[in-house]
Every structure is written in structure tokens, then in C-alpha cells.
């Protein structure tokens, strides 16, 4: 066996400390793809917030004298079958898609986290009941569950968000439950009990901060899925209703004209692809930065 000089051991400890201090942000910034994803998402967020200022035309005013106009300096992405400016509709669509993404992830994440923590912390019967419900929900494919939920509740933006959010609860519940079970076995939880902390304090101060990384990772990747599912719902007519501009419903409405007016479906499609891709890259980057051991 090779002998390690004492000083070398010291140096290693020092550099390890340095690495830890370096921290999450530095590690994230070193990942170019993830930074690219983040820049695209920031761009989309800016577009969504300032949609009225950015869009050159209204998203719903029809100009029947100018239908199916190809992309030009007047209409960058062309016009659709009612003569509406496709670029403006894509810009406004960013609003709806991001809102759907955020709120449905919010619903899935918060309900899933509460369910997961409850199941893992109180265990036995509570665990079995909650995880059985999760199992039942998971046995139905996510998209099918979202379709059935929004079919039952009726079409519309709010119902679509609820449907997408509810269909993503199981994955969060599972991830959170597994993470809590991991953390729960560690000695510092026992130490907190010995220090007199009650269950709520232990969950808030000792468990939540230690399971945040997997939740954040899942939320960023899950948002891509949520936007995609919402677009699919709109595509089959269950999500956002016309004349509201939503990427999925724009593709649905424009697909009949794809042979002579490719721009109506192509640009919203690219917008979906870009967002989903950016969010996935962001999610991957966050996972690598928050959880270096997972590599």
C-alpha cells in the first residue's frame, strides 16, 4: 500500500472544503447547456410578461382580407386561416404556457410533497393508504389521467391546469416519500427528538431542507412535461379554448392547412420544442449541481 504523506492529506481536506464552498451556483454555471436552457427560459419569461409590448399585432383581431399570408416583414411568422398574426399569437401563447407550467407544477409539487411527507413520517397505516392511492393514480398513464380529468371537469384553462397538476402528484409523492425515508434514518433526526423538537419542527427544519434538491430537480423537468401535456390537451380540444392563443390549440387549428401554410403549425411547434428542451436542460443542470454524488 502506498503511503500518503501527512501534508498531502491536509491539502486534500482543504481542497474538498474549497469544493464544497464553491457550491451549487458555481457548479451550475460551469454547465454550458444548463446555462443555455436557463437563458432561453428567462427569455420566454420576459416575452410572457411583456407580451402586449412585444407583439406587433393583437392576437385575436381577424383580418379576413389577409388569410394565409406567408412570413414577411409585416407578419414575421405569417398569418393563419383567420388572418391573425401568428408571431403575436406565439408571443401571447408563452404567457399561457408558462402559467400552466408554473401552476400545475405548483399543484402537483405541493400536494405531492405533503402526501409524501405524511406517508413517510407517520408510516404504517397512513403510509399504506396514501401510497395505495398513489399506486392507483400511477397505474393510469399520466396523459390519459389528465384527459379523463379535464373531460370530467370540462374544457378550460383552469381545469386544464388542475388536470395536469393532479396527474403529476404521484411522481412527487413517490420522490418525496423515498427522500424522507432516507433522511429519517439519519442520526440528526434522533438528535432533534432528543433536543425536544416536535414533528412539525423536525419536518420544517431537518427534513425539508435536506430533500429540497430532488423536489427542485423534478419540478424543473416536470414543468416541461406539464407544458407538453397541457398543449396535448389543447390540441384535442380539452384545454384552452379559442380564441385564446395557446401553442397546442394553434397547432390543432392549423394542422388542416399544413400543406399550403406550413407556418401556422411550425412556429408554435418550435416554441413548444424550445421550451421543453430548455426546461429539460435546466433540470439536468440543476440535478448535476445540487446532487453531485448522483453522477
Amino acid at each position, binding site marked *: 500500500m502506498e503511503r500518503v504523506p501527512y501534508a498531502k492529506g491536509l491539502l486534500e481536506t482543504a481542497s474538498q472544503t474549497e469544493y*464544497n464552498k464553491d457550491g451549487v451556483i458555481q457548479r451550475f454555471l460551469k454547465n454550458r447547456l444548463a446555462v443555455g436552457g436557463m437563458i432561453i427560459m428567462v427569455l420566454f419569461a420576459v416575452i410572457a410578461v411583456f407580451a402586449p409590448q412585444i407583439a406587433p399585432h393583437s392576437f385575436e383581431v381577424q383580418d379576413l382580407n389577409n388569410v394565409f399570408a406567408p412570413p414577411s416583414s409585416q407578419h414575421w411568422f405569417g398569418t393563419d386561416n383567420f388572418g391573425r398574426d401568428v408571431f403575436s399569437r406565439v408571443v401571447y401563447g408563452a404567457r399561457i404556457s408558462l402559467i400552466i407550467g408554473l401552476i400545475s407544477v405548483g399543484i402537483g409539487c405541493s400536494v405531492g410533497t405533503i402526501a409524501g411527507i405524511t406517508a413517510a413520517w407517520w408510516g404504517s397505516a397512513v403510509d399504506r393508504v396514501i401510497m395505495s392511492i398513489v399506486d392507483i393514480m400511477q397505474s393510469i398513464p399520466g396523459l390519459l389521467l389528465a384527459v379523463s380529468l379535464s373531460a370530467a371537469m370540462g374544457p378550460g384553462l383552469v381545469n386544464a391546469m388542475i388536470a395536469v397538476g393532479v396527474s403529476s402528484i404521484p411522481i412527487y409523492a413517490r420522490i418525496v416519500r423515498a427522500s424522507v425515508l432516507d433522511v429519517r434514518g439519519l*442520526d440528526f433526526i*434522533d438528535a432533534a427528538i432528543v433536543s*425536544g*423538537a416536535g414533528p412539525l419542527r423536525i419536518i420544517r427544519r431537518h427534513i425539508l*431542507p435536506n430533500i429540497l434538491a430532488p423536489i427542485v430537480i423534478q419540478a424543473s423537468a416536470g414543468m416541461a412535461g406539464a407544458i407538453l401535456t397541457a398543449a396535448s390537451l389543447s390540441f384535442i380540444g380539452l384545454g384552452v379554448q379559442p380564441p385564446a392563443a395557446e401553442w397546442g390549440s394553434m397547432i390543432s387549428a392549423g394542422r388542416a392547412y399544413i400543406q399550403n401554410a406550413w407556418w401556422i403549425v411550425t412556429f408554435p411547434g418550435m416554441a413548444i420544442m424550445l421550451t421543453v428542451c430548455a426546461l429539460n436542460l435546466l433540470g439536468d443542470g440543476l440535478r448535476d449541481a445540487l446532487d453531485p454524488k448522483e453522477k
Partner: protein
Amino acid sequence: MSQAILTVEHLSHVYNRYTAKPLKAVDDLSFHIEEGETFGLVGESGCGKSTTGKAILQLQKPTHGDIQLRGKSIFNLKTKEQKAAYRKSIQMIFQDPYSSLNPKLTVENIVGESMEVFSLVKNREEKREKITELLELVGLEKSYIDRYPHEFSGGQRQRIGIARALAVTPELIVCDEPISSLDVSVQAQIVNLLKELQSIKKLSYLFIAHDLSMVKYISRRIGVMYRGKLVELATSEELYENPLHPYTKSLLSTIPVPEPLVERKRQAIAYTPQTWEGRNLELREVSADHFVLCDESGGY
């Protein structure tokens, strides 16, 4: 040194109780800890010593038996005050200095947790002042208060754990193998620190360990556990000079002697377990304060 601070009576703990293969981790265990003394509990892994420690801290509810703190059972504390008083009286030091500190909290929040829970301090300044005192008491610099656990070595982390246990000024500290995951050079430092704290703070310790080498320097009385039972209980000197039970002899024979010529001639004594089924085994007092598990005829 006569009043018992903690009494464990007929403690039993069975794991997997309702399955085909129940496991008796602790089997009818009784002992007491006197005020100001260190009671060493020694045995191999799986003999139930940690389970006993956890039962004393109510981290696990035992299947049978009673534990009394100053004559009052800890299992029927009714009021909030009684429960708080119990928590403040008994604290714990953990075996693994890495998993026993929450990586997301600073030293201030780790050591100060119980102070907050029991409202022992009026404001943050007072809390920080008390924590600084504790850090100095356990031999850490006061500037460490805002650091995170990953910035410390194993020995330093163990000192933080000790400071956390002292935050509520307890009377009894359960030390669950506090030195077995540390470097040998650091082990001695921690043992000396514990001894020093004992004389300053008038503490009693339940010192759990898996070998006898370090325990004899800190314990006044030692209980040797095997298969969930105490097989021998005596004062530290008596146990080393006059071990009776073959299991104790075997344990003692594994401690190396710091003298090469002697050490080379020594041989480890293997212990062949005897059947305990159907025999009237009891802890019997063979000489003053020396108990050993044996049957009527003195067979082990």
C-alpha cells in the same frame, strides 16, 4: 454517590414481534446508574446495547419493562412540563459524527435547537452568548458558530455533538459509542473531554461501547452484555482483575497489551456460547457488587 439517577427494570425489546421470526434484542435487562458515575455498557454488535440507549431516550418504545428517572417512570409523563423536564435531564451523544449533524444547519442552529424549543434564552444575543460558552467548554473556537458541519473534522464534529447535548444542562448523557468512529489519537481527546465535563458539570454517563479497552478508563462500573442479557456486572477494577464469566474473559483477552513481548505470548480466548434454554440463569452476586449470570451450581 449512592442515589440512583436512572433505573432500568426488566427491559425487553423484541424486533419483528408479530412475524414468524421475532428477534429478542434486549431480554429482561435490569441495572441502575448512580448519580455522578459513569456506567459502561459493553458488548458485541447486535447484543442490544444501542437498543437499550434508545429506549432510555424514548427513541424506541420497549416491548416490556420500565425505566425510571429519579424514581419516576419515563413512560407515563402526563403534562408538557414533565415531558420537557425529562428531555432536559437526559441527552445523547451519537456514534457517527457525520450523520448526527444536520448538514443544512449552522453550528448555532444545531447547538441552539433545544434552547429554542424549551425557550431557555430570551433573545438571539443571549443564545449566541450561551453557545459561544459551550463551544469554548468543549474546546472549539467561538468563531465556529456560523460554520456548517462539512467544514469540520470527525473529532470537531463530535465536540459539536457534545456541545449540543450540554445545551440543556442535562444530568445524564447517553454516549452511544461516541469514540468508535474516531481516530485513535482523537479518541483519547474525546474521552478526556468527557471526563473533564463530568467533573465540571456533575454529569452521569451511560457509556456504550463494543470493546473494553477505552471503557475502563472512564467507567466506575461496567455491565457486559451478551444476547440481550447482562452476563456480568462489576466495578471497573474488579472486572479487569477478576473476570468470572467466560464471555467477559474472552472480551478482555482481545485488548492488546502495549508490550510486544507479552503481547506475542498472549492468546485470544474464544467464547463458545452455552445453551441458555431451560436453565435457571440469574444474575447472582458472587462478591460485593460483583454480579454474574449463572445457574444455581455456578455454571455459566
